[in-house]
Each structure stands twice: as C-alpha cells, then as structure tokens.
C-alpha cells in the first residue's frame, strides 16, 4: 500500500465514477489477438500475449501453463513459434486446416521457460496447443506466490533464485504491483529479472500498474488482467481488482468461472483484499458491500483458497470459511511492526483441495 499518494485522490473527487475499471476490462478482450499484414493470431481466452508476428514467426508470452491458438496466414514451409514463460518441458502440438497433425520440432531452449519450435505448416491455418508436462496427471503439485515487488525490483534476484531452488514448484502466481509506476520500461526491466526464474510467472495487475494510465502497458506485456485456466485438475481465476472494485464484465466472467468449476478445486487470485483483516486500516475494496457480495459468490462457488496482495505483509485469515492469504512480501515498502519481512508462499494443492501453505522468509 502507498496511502499518501492515494490521499491525493481526494482532490479530483469531482471526477469520481463507478466504471473506472470498465475500459481496462474491455481491453482484456483484445489481448491474445493479432491481425496485421496478412497474419492473424487468436489465442483462445487470451491466455497468451502475441508479442510479435509475421508470415514466418510468432512470439508469444504465456499467461497460463496451457493454451490453444489459431494462426492464419499463407504457410508454405515451416513456421517458427517462440513461446516465453512456459512450464519447463512444455510441448507444442499443431494441426493443419484439415485437422491433420503437423510435425513440430524443438529448435532450441534458451532458458527453461523459453522454447522455439518449428512447425511444418501448409495452407492458411495452423492450430497450436501448448501442453505442459504432466498436465493430465492428477495428484498434488506446488506453486509459489509472490507479489508487490515494486521498488525492490533491483533486489528481486534473491527471491527468484530461492523460488527456483525449491525442489517442487511448477509456477509462480502473482497478484501484481510488479513495479512502482507500471511503465513499459519498468515492466520490461522486471521481465528481464524473470530470466533468472526457472519456472513461469503468471500474474494479474495491481494498483501500481495503473499509476500513470488506466490503459496499462501491463496488458501488452504480461497479458490479460482477468483470466482463468485449469492445471492438473485445479482451476485458477485471476481477477482485476486494481481499482478496488471489479468491473461488471469482470464480475460476469468470474461468475461464469465459479459456476463452471463448482466441483473442482478452485484458487482465486486478485490484488486488492476484498476485506482488510485490520478493518480500521481499510486496505480492502472501496465498497464493503461489493466486497461482501463477492465473498458470498466465492463461497457459493466453493472456492478453496484466495490469494491477495496490496498489503506489504502476510496475513492468513478466512472469509466465509474460505482460507485467505494476503502476501505482499515481494519487497515493496514493508509494513512495519508486523514481524514480517520479504517473503513468498509455497502452496501445495491437488484436485481434492488446498493441502498446505508455507511462508518462506527470504532475508
């Protein structure tokens, strides 16, 4: 949290509106879609960002462990697909316009989270699918939780290396505030730091990503602010609450995901705590009515765990019986007097529910 800057918000109160997140959510729908100079790329559910594309090559940044996409163009030989931020060992499958399997060759692997593939493409259409290893295997797995790095981005190396050294970690889940100001330069600098992370980093955005703009560069680099995927039988829903509220469209999407995955282990992740456990501080949603409405929906949807950031500390509590964790320990200006330092969480989960949450102090 960075309360003083927020206090300046009192000044332009005349410009207050209820739809501050609407435009940003609508922009989400354009993420994962690219249509320039005869090449059209459509990633289903926007689960990857099209960083660049032409008639010979496409580069994608994955927002999820697995996704499917359609690339349309004029393919006569091979087509190169470069995927960043993937689960190590992920495979790429491809089918042609007649649903025929296409040969896919791994060209190289510059880092554990980056692979370049060559697809023997013909015709005008290729269907791609990113498939992580063990994707259909049930059983428990672990992911890390790391958020609110902000100004400590220059010191994030230590945390990322510690996470990389974890014996079993499939990916890092983040709820945003990756940088202080959310500018393109800062986000690209943060992305450069992720090169020392051996597993992918899946994230929504936080309020600091909105510092200068409600059309944040975040969406061009890291993907949608609202997205949802399944991984080894567990559902993950990331939702944009950076404006201390949900837009009606984001709310609608979340309701669909909750309804669809009622019988599945479900993890909910968003930046702003719906309710601040220390209520006098008031570090949660702008409206407690909206917050409780959302909690009621999460409980009705049988969410198994909720992860939040924004508050630069750690707190484990429950809302409507849902185990909830605030973990803003990435290094942003820490909350004093709480006995909590820089940290990340290790979460063990399987398709029967949440198994364990451990806080790992770094310093």
């Amino acid at each position, binding site marked *: 949290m960075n309360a003083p800057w927020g206090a300046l918000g009192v000044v332009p109160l005349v410009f207050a509106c209820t739809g501050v997140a609407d435009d940003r959510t609508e922009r989400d729908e354009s993420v994962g879609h690219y249509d320039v100079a005869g090449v059209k790329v459509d990633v289903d559910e926007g689960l990857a960002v099209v960083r660049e594309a032409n008639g010979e090559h496409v580069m994608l940044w994955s927002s999820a462990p697995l996704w499917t996409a359609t690339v349309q163009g004029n393919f006569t030989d091979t087509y190169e697909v470069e995927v960043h931020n993937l689960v190590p060992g992920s495979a790429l499958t491809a089918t042609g316009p007649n649903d025929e399997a296409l040969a896919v060759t791994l060209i190289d692997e510059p880092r554990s989270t980056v692979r370049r593939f060559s697809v023997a493409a013909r015709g005008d259409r290729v269907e791609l699918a990113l498939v992580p290893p063990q994707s259909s295997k049930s059983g428990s797995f672990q992911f890390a939780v790391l958020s609110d790095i902000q100004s400590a981005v220059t010191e994030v190396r230590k945390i990322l290396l510690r996470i990389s050294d974890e014996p079993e970690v499939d990916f890092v889940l983040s709820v945003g505030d990756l940088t202080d100001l959310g500018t393109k330069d800062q986000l690209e600098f943060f992305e450069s730091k992720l090169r020392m992370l051996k597993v992918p980093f899946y994230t929504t955005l936080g309020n600091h990503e909105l510092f200068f703009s409600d059309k944040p560069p975040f969406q061009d680099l890291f993907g949608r602010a609202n997205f949802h995927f399944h991984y080894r039988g567990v559902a993950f829903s990331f939702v944009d609450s950076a404006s201390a509220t949900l837009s009606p469209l984001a709310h609608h999407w979340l309701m669909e995901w909750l309804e669809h995955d009622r019988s599945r282990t479900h993890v909910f992740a968003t930046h702003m705590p719906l309710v601040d456990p220390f209520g006098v501080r008031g570090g949660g949603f702008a409206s407690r009515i909206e917050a409780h409405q959302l909690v009621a929906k999460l409980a009705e949807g049988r969410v198994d765990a909720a992860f939040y950031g924004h508050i630069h500390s750690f707190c484990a509590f429950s809302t409507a019986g849902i185990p909830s964790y605030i973990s803003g320990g990435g290094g942003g200006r820490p*909350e004093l007097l709480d006995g909590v330092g820089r940290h990340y969480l290790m979460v063990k989960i399987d398709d029967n529910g949440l198994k364990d949450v451990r806080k790992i102090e770094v310093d």
Partner: protein
Amino acid sequence: MAFFVGDVPSPLRDIATQVNRPSCSILTVGVLVLVASAAQATPATTSVSDELPCATDDEVTVTAPRRVLATGLAVFPGFFVNGTGHWVASRPCTARRLLLAEGVGLGGMAVGIPTLAFTGAAHYLAGPAVLLTLGGFGVVLAAFGADIYGVSGASRYAGTPLLHRPSWETELGVLHVYNPNFDFNWLLTQRAAANVGHLNLSMALDTALDGAHARYRLGAGYRIRGPLPGTASRDGSFVDVDAGMSEQRFTGMGFVTDSAEVQIKGRLDLSQFGPTLRGAFAEGTTGIAYSRTTYVGISTDGDDEAMLLGRIGFGAYLGRKDRSGGEAMFYYDHRRDDYAAGVKLPGYGNGIVGHVGIHGRYFVSKQVGIGAVLETGSSHVANLSLLFRSGGHP
C-alpha cells in the same frame, strides 16, 4: 499479528485482532478525551450581547470590486494560504485565525500522512494516522471554505441556526442508488428521532422497492452541549455522543451485516471565528464500528470487521435572519459500508478514500420541510425526502 493455517481462533480473539487493540485503545482514549473536554467546556449561554471574536473586522466596509477580488484570491492562492481573501478584504483578525487553523490542519496531515507512508500503513498506527489526516484535512477544508464564504459576503444572505432542538423529527423519502453491481436501485427511506432533554433516540429504515434489501438502525445519543428542546443555545454549535446498532440485509446479494458503532459528532458555528462567518459552520465526526457479516446458505460463524468512522463538512444555514430555514453542507465521509462507500478514481489510489456528498434541508414552515442528499463514491446516491418536526423554533 497473523493467523496461520490450522488456527481456529475464538470469536472474541477474532474480533480483538480485527479491531487491532493498540489502535482501538488510542481511538478510545481520544474519544474519551474529546468527550471530557467538551463536557468541561463553558456551557453555552443564551446571551446575545457577548462580544463576537474579531469584532473589529466587522467595522470594515468593503467595496464591491474589492469583495470580488478578495473572493477570487480566496480561491487562489487562498487554496494554499487560507485567509488570503480576508487579508485582502482588510479583515486581518479573521484572516489570522483562518491561517492558524490551516496550520493546525496541515500539522495533523503532516503527522498522519508520513506515518502511513513510512510505516507501510502499519495496522497498529493506521487508525490514528488516518484520523489525524482526515481531521487535518477537514480543518484545512473548513478554513478554505470559510475564507471564500466570508469575503464573498454570503453571510448577508445566510440564515440562522436552529437554537432550539426539535422535540421530534421524522423523515419520509425516496433514495436512488446507482451501482452496476447492486440488484436494487430504489429505496423508501424512513427516519424518526425523539429528543428529550439531552437524550436523543432515533430509528431509521430503508427498504428496497425493486430488490431484496432492507437496512435498519436504532440509535441513542447524548448531547453534551448545544441546542436542546426548550433551551435556546447561543449558536448552532453542538457536541453529541451517539451509539447505534444496525442491520443491513442484502439477502439478494448473499449476505447480512450486523453492526454496532459509537461516535462523537461536533459542529462549530463559525460565528465564533469571526463576524464575516456568521451563518457558516464546520462539522466533524469520528468513531468506530464493529460488524459481523454472515452469508446466506453458508454455515460459518461470519466475518468480523472493524471500521473507522470519520466525517468532515463545511456548510451554511439557509433561510431568513428571523428564523431558521435549514442548512446545506458539503462533506467527506470515510465510511465504506454504506451505499456510497469509497470513491473510485481513475489511476492507482483507490480503496483508501471514502465518498463526498452534499446534503441540504429546508423548512418551508415551522413543521414541514424538504431534504436532499447527493453522494458519490462507489455508487451514486440521490435522496429526496419530506421532513416533519415539532419544536426547534422560538
């Protein structure tokens, strides 16, 4: 303080931790100090012959062009240096008081804001720091508004405050709330209050006309000083302590919230500041609320929360000089559990600030009046009501 997986805290420990005992202790002591100070203050008298402060400022005649200039300068640079308008209008006594008030307000903010910033909004200190910031901002806002009000000559048209408190008051109205996430928009609002001596008993009921929602509140208050039924006060200043219990039933949205709260509310009639400020007032409220939210169809104990209450406002009395007509006030309210809740702004600073509003009431006769409220925050709220009262006038 943190719970960890596997802990099953008792409800009391839950509430205590939610409330944050150190902040709560500071707030409680603060409220008690305010109450004790107010109680020990010199009781208001009915003598109208007491000399007003800064009486010499009232002897100055200001030409219309100078008044226009002073009003403009009260806006800018008066926004930064409160009292500029009164200086230009040759009213130095009031100008000095406004500048001093601004200094006090900025001092509060200078303590509160850095405390929040440099402690990362430490939960032990957040409550008092927010109160200092809010109170300081309120004083600055009042001084800024008072400067403009005073030099613009608005006091010539202002009404008089209610010097006798009504024996009873009722209100019947319609409220419209716009929030895309709500499942209702229109409510019927009903209020009733009885004042007996220093005591105030109140009740309120809001019921949705197009959804499954109702909200009710029972309150009891004690007026430490200020207008009372049958006893005239010198001016409109008052200090009240109020306690209330409420229930908000959002059954269509899946939850019910029960709350208890205590707050202290004070109004300062700004005629005590200077003669140019006759007809204006500043108001402040602070307190704390505890709530438990239960969820429809979910079998858990419910979620306990605390909430800091705070409200600051600047207003003016409406009507004629020979009787009280009503009042209008612009205010900021820090509470987040009502319809308006916290404002949503473009950019990054959301979740911290409450909402703003304007309320007005005007009595067209001794007993009947109309009231209106406009608020904007997470929702847009508009309320129009009929007011009835008995007493409250000579």
